């Protein structure tokens, strides 16, 4: 019996202690007419050997494409030690550190993580993670609406140049609380977001994505000051790798961003089909009590010795119930473990090199592909490590051709951004080599010539 240690004699002894005639008798409070028979839709169990074979075959069936897609998930080198340590049983099979004395490992790590995210974003306080970048943005918006004392508006300005799935998640997660979104357009030439509050109703929050979904770097100082002048709180949505080299949101404009959030995946989480990743959220200390999610603090024990514990729990669902800042309970602790080890291992110089090597590789990729006939750069604005290319033909068939050649060529923008025509979003991180880039260019060239 997989994972069940009981011998027949154990069972007899235990039933004797309970005073029950059989295991089945333990279910005698369930009305008989509700009891289910055999599960028909679950097959017979497999041994570990058999499931290993099955999974290996399915993995091999999918193979591995040479990846040039970012669009919210980035393929970076992950030091081998990161997941070796992260999957140690002491991290892997522990739970939320409710018993602080028995969870100092996780708690201290979370405190270190909060420090690292505060440092990267230039903010005073950080929580201990949310589910992913998209839900972190949704939570940041709800937090801003609670925290904004300047107005009671429920309107949020989102850039049009936002990840389309993030925009959908924001709607799914915030609309029931009455929040409405309005779009700020982007400049067709530069790809930069235009400060534009079309109906002049004061927004409660303005979201600034740096870089934006097209990889373009925004004029964050001007946008931040403009947003504050509207009475809005500024939510920065950032790529954490980029913060090794880009101005931290805490210093944007005259007053800095109020809340910073984003997708933590680039910090040591594999692509893994979309998850688990983690969302991060940092903020000004003045609004920490509006934060969602776990927060760890440093304190002392009975002997005055340093220790760590979950704190400000009066914000949370298990204490505040219907009045909590969020319903979030389980978050993404294991991914935060990986990210903290990752950041310790790459350090400030390593992260800056990852960021700039990715920028340089994307530049090389754009140059190589732009040499192909009919291919051009989508925008003139400065950019981080992603770029929009305009193609002479519909994108989808070209991506299919590339996939047949073993290349994942990027994200087809034409569904979500029809105004861009045949547009493709590409990315080449530090993991791509010059020969990878050449292979992509040659293959696309062949497909375009056909």
């Amino acid at each position, binding site marked *: 019996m997989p994972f069940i240690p009981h011998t027949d004699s154990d069972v007899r002894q*235990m039933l004797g202690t309970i005073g029950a005639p059989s295991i089945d008798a333990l279910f005698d409070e369930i009305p008989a007419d509700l009891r289910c028979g055999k599960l028909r839709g679950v097959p017979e169990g497999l041994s570990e050997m058999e499931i290993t074979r099955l999974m290996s075959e399915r993995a091999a069936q999918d193979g591995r494409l040479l990846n040039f897609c970012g669009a919210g998930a980035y393929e970076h080198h992950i030091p081998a030690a990161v997941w070796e340590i992260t999957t140690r049983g002491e991290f892997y099979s522990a739970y939320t550190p409710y018993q602080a004395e028995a969870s100092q490992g996780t708690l201290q790590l979370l405190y270190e993580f909060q420090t690292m995210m505060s440092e990267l974003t230039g903010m005073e306080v950080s929580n201990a993670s949310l589910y992913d970048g998209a839900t972190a943005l949704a939570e940041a918006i709800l937090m801003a609406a609670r925290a904004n004392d300047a107005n009671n508006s429920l309107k949020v300005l989102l850039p049009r140049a936002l990840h389309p799935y993030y925009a959908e998640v924001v709607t799914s997660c915030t609309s029931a609380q009455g929040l409405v979104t309005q779009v700020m357009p982007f400049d067709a030439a530069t790809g930069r977001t235009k400060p534009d509050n079309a109906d002049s109703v004061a927004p409660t929050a303005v979201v600034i994505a740096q870089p934006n979904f097209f990889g373009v770097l925004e004029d964050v100082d001007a946008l931040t000051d403009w947003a504050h002048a509207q009475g809005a709180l500024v939510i920065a949505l950032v790529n954490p790798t980029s913060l090794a080299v880009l101005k931290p949101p805490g210093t944007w404009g005259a007053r800095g961003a109020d809340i910073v959030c984003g997708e933590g995946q680039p910090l040591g989480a594999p692509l893994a089909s979309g998850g688990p990743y983690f969302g991060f959220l940092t903020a000004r200390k003045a609004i920490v009590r509006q934060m969602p999610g776990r927060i760890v603090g440093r304190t002392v024990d009975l002997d005055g010795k340093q220790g760590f514990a979950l704190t400000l729990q009066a914000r949370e669902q298990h204490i505040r119930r219907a009045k909590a800042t969020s319903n979030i309970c389980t978050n993404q602790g294991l991914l935060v473990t990986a990210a903290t080890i990752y950041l310790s291992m790459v350090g400030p110089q390593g992260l800056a090199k990852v960021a700039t090597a990715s920028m340089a590789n994307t530049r090389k990729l754009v140059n190589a592909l732009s040499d192909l006939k009919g291919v051009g750069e989508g925008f003139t604005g400065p950019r981080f490590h992603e770029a929009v290319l305009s193609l002479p033909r519909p994108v989808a068939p070209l991506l299919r051709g590339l996939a047949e050649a073993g290349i994942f060529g990027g994200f087809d923008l034409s569904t979500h951004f029809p105004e861009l025509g045949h547009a493709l979003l590409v990315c080449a991180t530090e993991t791509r080599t010059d020969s990878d880039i050449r292979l992509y260019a040659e293959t696309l060239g062949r497909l375009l010539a056909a």
Partner: protein
Amino acid sequence: MELIFELSSPGRGAAAQHPPVAADLSAIPEALRRKEPPRLPEVSELQAVRHYTRLSRLNFSIDTQFYPLGSCTMKYNPRACNKLAMLPEFLGRHPLAPESHSQGYLACLYELQEMLRDVTGMAAVSLTPMAGAQGEFAGVAMIRAYHHARGDTARREILVPDAAHGTNPATATMLGYVAREIPTDAQGDVDIEKLKAAVGPQTAGIMLTNPSTLGVFERRIKEIAGIVHTAGGLLYYDGANLNAILGKVRPGDMGFDVIHMNLHKTFSTPHGGGGPGAGAVGVSERLRPFMPIPVVGVADGRENREKGDLGSLASNDSRFSTPDSRSYRWLDENDLPQSIGRLSAFMGNAGVLMRAYVYARLLGREGMHRVAEFAALNANYLSARLKAVGFDLAYPTRRASHEFIITLKKQKQELDLTATDVAKRLLDHGYHAPTVYFPLLVPECLLIEPTETEDLQTLDAFVDAMTSIWNEARSDMPKLKGAPWTLPVRRLDDVRCARQLDLRWQPAP
């Protein structure tokens, strides 16, 4: 232990982990550049490895300790689940990779949907929610969408028993509902008369856990379903306690319209020090159109196949074969135009789903039935033995489900013994504490869930520890009040923690 930042020296680093190029900032406009580098640690690879390995050893975990944390189902997390979910092809797959190169992955998710559908008795399953609380959000959002689609926008209340997890009322609020509490009767069941008085045209639905957080099966569930349905409301099943009934009774058969499952509980994916979880949702036929996207379907449009037909999955002949006869695709807003939408950027906690899939295949049909059986055997055995020691069960006349509650109400009055004292002293004995002070309506309570994967010797040793604490409460109270004594820290000052906020390290000025 020192912080990683305190090990840092300027200029040190793990060179093998850096791209072999100099950082060139020239492509970044001056005004957008960072002026000062972030104060991340500058340590060697060995320093980092040693620091985090040492930190890990300060934790209690399932792999190192019995962890009877009620309502959390801390069962063994088979290592195969982790290893197979982390095969290089699965880890390297981009979330937006073409379906043509995702068939193996999609097959796993599709089959997981099908297996979960069967064990819950629901019409369809969506795997996207990333934890139980997000599953709750999805479930209540579907209830809301259902009412709104019928033009019924007057329903503003979600009913929640007073024993419910805090996530239930918090979820109702996030969806714009008012959470209305329904009291529990003396036997631990929902107070039916109070429920009857509370339902009406304002009732959108009720959120129930069954077995409840009190560790007992809600016997009149069919009656409750009838009352709520008659009032036009829907029933939401909080699957936190699904482990208790897996393969015994199905939420769909109890009359629930929507359910979430905590795959990190019942399907044994790791809790990871606080996640990631996965909160798959199952729905009845009438809520199917509102499911969160994406969902995995069969590419030929046969996703509505008859119940039980799992093709190659169920066939003994193809236990080793990949299902090459069928192809899968994502179903999105084009297939489900009334969907409540996306709840994550991509496909939820995909890697957690893969672990749950491997676990489900390892267990198989018979294994699923056994989960609840042995979870109940362990819980009832432990409760019988602790009762014999002298501890008071909160519901002594009821059968324990997969967990049970001890209340120290009497010992608090007589000896000033609290649930915290017992919890902290258990840590000295090498056991993680049970859940304490939840559910809120039982004073000085310990919610104990042993799970099915614990052996008899471990349970007996735990009883010995509890017996020792029971005796200590009468012989050496300071020992209990001062516990724990043997852990890296003693009891922490939570008040100071919240009042003198220290949420990040700062370098010495």
